[in-house]
């Protein structure tokens, strides 16, 4: 009796400690980010930072405008989403609703395999195969462009989007489908009007996770987008993303310098953007659930 109470309370305390540690760690990271980032804004105008066109952190005088980096991230991520979401969701529908059982099994294991490839490897393969291909097909001076990056990120987001959407679609009760078909709905009408809305929260979660996976993706993007910190006119221009900038330059800065703090400020901006996206997705999800 006593020992059961004892283990119960021990486990409870352990769980509490773990949760508490997690919260502490996250807040420490956040405060660190905030301190370094805000330290930067004490010396540099925030408006100029966000809307400045030039990122020259080491020139004299230095320029810390991250608009090109924001645009770079935007082009690449948005481009990836535009490609990955429709293709991924349709693939999920194909696998769970249309494909014959044998094909389904092969596709599912294939997709799981794709998800397991490390991003650096994908980046490398993209660099040697995709980049030249994009250059030739679109007849542009260099294949290292936002488009190549978007395509590759789409490819990386796809396994997550497909497999989680597929789970969501398959967990829609079969009785909904039967009900629709019994009313004389076609296969397409059933998928579009009944199964899709019923699976919507799950599909949205899949999209968020898939995009979430690539939004912070750095290495592969760095290898393939050309890394030019200039505002792109079209999606076929070389770009540089915020994450790539931080990763590439952090090693070269002097700790405590303006450049160093500037990179933290970029991190802070990234944090805010991610937070807003999550917030929007969350409230959307709540609305769909209702």
């Amino acid at each position, binding site marked *: 009796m006593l020992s059961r109470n004892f283990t119960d309370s021990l486990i409870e305390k352990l769980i509490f400690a773990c949760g508490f540690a997690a919260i502490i760690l996250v807040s420490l990271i956040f405060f660190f980010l905030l301190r370094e980032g805000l330290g930067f804004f004490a010396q540099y105008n925030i408006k100029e930072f966000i809307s400045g066109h030039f990122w020259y952190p080491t020139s004299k005088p230095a320029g810390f405008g991250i608009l090109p980096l924001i645009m770079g991230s935007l082009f690449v991520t948005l481009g990836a989403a535009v490609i990955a979401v429709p293709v991924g969701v349709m693939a999920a529908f194909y696998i769970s609703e249309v494909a014959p*059982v044998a094909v389904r099994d092969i596709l599912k294991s294939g997709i799981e395999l794709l998800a397991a490839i490390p991003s650096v490897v994908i980046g490398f393969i993209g660099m040697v195969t995709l980049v030249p291909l994009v250059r030739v097909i679109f007849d542009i001076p260099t294949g290292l462009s936002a488009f190549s990056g978007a395509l590759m990120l789409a490819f990386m987001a796809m396994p997550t989007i497909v497999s989680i959407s597929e789970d969501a679609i398959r967990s829609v*009760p*079969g*009785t*909904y*489908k*039967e*009900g*629709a*078909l*019994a*009313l*004389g*709905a*076609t296969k397409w*009408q059933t998928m579009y*009007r*009944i199964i899709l*809305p*019923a699976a919507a929260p799950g599909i949205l979660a899949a999209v968020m996770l898939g995009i979430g996976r690539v939004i912070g993706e750095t290495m592969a993007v760095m290898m393939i987008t050309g890394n030019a910190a200039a505002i792109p006119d079209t999606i076929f221009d070389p770009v540089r993303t915020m994450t790539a900038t931080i990763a590439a330059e952090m090693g070269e800065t002097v700790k405590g310098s303006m450049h160093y703090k500037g990179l933290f400020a970029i991190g802070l901006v990234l944090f805010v953007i991610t937070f807003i996206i999550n917030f929007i997705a969350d409230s959307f999800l709540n609305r769909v659930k209702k």
Partner: protein
Amino acid sequence: MLEEIRIKVENINFFYGLKHALVDLNMDIYKNRVTAMIGPSGCGKSTFIRLINRMNDLVSHTTLKGRILLDGKNIFDPDVDVVELRRKVGMVFQKPNPFPKSIFENLVYGLQIKGVTDKKVLNEKTETALRKAALWEEVKDRLNDSALRLSGGQQQRLCIARCLVVEPEVILFDEPCASLDPISTRKIEDLIVELKKDYTILVVTHNMQQAARISTKTAFFLLGELIEFGNTEDIFTNPKDKRTEDYVSGRFG
């Protein structure tokens, strides 16, 4: 009224994998009649009526032999349009299965997929169907609420209304009153008798009195076989088969 055969079942055998679920079925289902299917649980009643709108197409690893003729045409012929068939042969499932949408959306779905968009028509048909299914008074002020918030019996009546709204010609009811109280049951029974004028109706039921009250013909199933099929009166008062007699008198099953 002339007895007109609407559905002719010829030598139907049906298998789930190796399980022989329906054995050598032959029967005629008449237009403007209510045909009741009775028999102990697991004897194949649901399996049988799910054949008539080809719902069992969705179950994999099944084998079917034989024919079911609807107005003289075999519904399993390769050139039959299943969607067209299901618009003609509506079904109310054994377990209520409303869509996870509002009450109103549940009802208009069947119309919308046929291309009806006129708001006035949708509203009118919704109300008519809900009234027929004895649900209108309970839900008229909350048509935009989720159908999943209705009680089990209300959901069942919603599914009946959803089926009625598209005006099929044949309706398959799989235990439509299983989760209803006596008052709603009474209303649904009245509805079925009323519907008989315009429709061909099949009802699966475990309730002997119900079968006796509403049906013209009764089929008694046992272990996938059709033991006896005839006028309801004969089945209940003068059954030919000993097993039928035992079942309807409650001596086994």
